[in-house]
């Protein structure tokens, strides 16, 4: 069995975990009480999914999902770079969510027939929640993108800022040329971006044209922000190992 299955599980699981951790920072501070609950719900869904992905990877690596979440150092995380970008203002958070949901749903769709049974089961279970996430974030992006001058300007600068790190998600990490456990990232990139372009055409937001993608995650290089995220997330378990409720 190739390592691609573990890497894939970590890629998706770590992304969900880190993004959930970041979104949770909005709890109690979102623009409206309904948005607060909605974003918290999204974070909870992602944590649930992260448990499944990390559980699978952990089994193969001889660790528990908790060990993977709380004991690994930043260079071992395989989350997509988009997820560790700073929250910024609420519009930025929603744009990040929309881009992530687009990537996430496309990846899960392509895994519906994955050869590894556990992976395709987790994908099938997650896709219902993720479809709703995308529906919600897309709806908000469409609204903000057709709104006032201020909202359009903010969403435009968000997508411009997040675009390169978003593309990092299409990095190919299959071990071999015909790796049957990996995914066709080129195809994913094309279909995912086409859909985003279609969506944005109905708004005043201009989809960036370039495809200059950042790299580094798969080589263990992360942005500074991940350090801050992990400090919050791992502090308790690292200071008091094996602490339980």
């Amino acid at each position, binding site marked *: 069995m190739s390592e691609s299955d573990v890497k894939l599980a970590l890629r998706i699981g770590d992304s969900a975990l880190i993004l959930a951790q970041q979104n949770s920072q909005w709890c109690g501070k979102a623009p409206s009480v*309904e948005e607060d*609950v*909605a974003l918290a*719900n999204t974070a909870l869904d992602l944590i649930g999914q992260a448990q499944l992905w990390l559980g699978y990877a952990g089994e193969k690596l001889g660790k528990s999902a908790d060990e993977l979440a709380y004991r690994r150092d930043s260079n071992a995380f395989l989350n997509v770079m988009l997820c560790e970008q700073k929250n910024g203002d609420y519009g930025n958070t929603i744009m990040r969510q929309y881009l992530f949901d687009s990537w996430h749903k496309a990846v899960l769709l392509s895994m519906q027939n994955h050869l590894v049974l556990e992976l395709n089961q987790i994908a099938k279970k997650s896709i219902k929640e993720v479809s*709703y996430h995308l*529906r*919600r974030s897309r*709806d908000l992006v469409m609204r903000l993108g057709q*709104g006032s001058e201020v909202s359009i300007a903010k969403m435009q600068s968000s997508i411009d800022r997040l675009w390169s790190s978003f593309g990092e998600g299409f990095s190919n990490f299959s071990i071999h040329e015909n790796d049957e456990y990996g995914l066709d990232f080129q195809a994913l990139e094309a279909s995912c971006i086409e859909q985003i372009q279609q969506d944005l055409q109905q708004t005043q937001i201009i989809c960036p044209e370039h495809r200059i993608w950042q790299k580094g995650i798969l080589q263990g290089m992360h942005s500074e922000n991940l350090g801050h995220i992990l400090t919050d997330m791992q502090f308790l378990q690292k200071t008091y190992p094996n602490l339980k409720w």
Partner: protein
Amino acid sequence: MMSTDWPLWEIFIRGQHGLSHRHVGSLHAPDETMALNNARDVYTRRNEGVSIWAVRSTDIIASDPDDKEELFEAAKSKIYRHPSFFEIPSEVKKL
């Protein structure tokens, strides 16, 4: 020209084994789509429902509590208005 205020909506949820939508609360949303999405997020967190109805609060016409006696007193003391002398078969218990 878009308005910046979010009207109030009343939310009704029908549970999986329920027969009717029950009022669960209210929320603010700018329009129908967000009213449904917000209702899904706020009121179906713990698997309570399969169907959501959202109604603008201003569209609900309610009876005046002060009229309670006028409107509802009559029904109380007339047992001949209730079909209480029939045997209801167990198959239609929910009637």
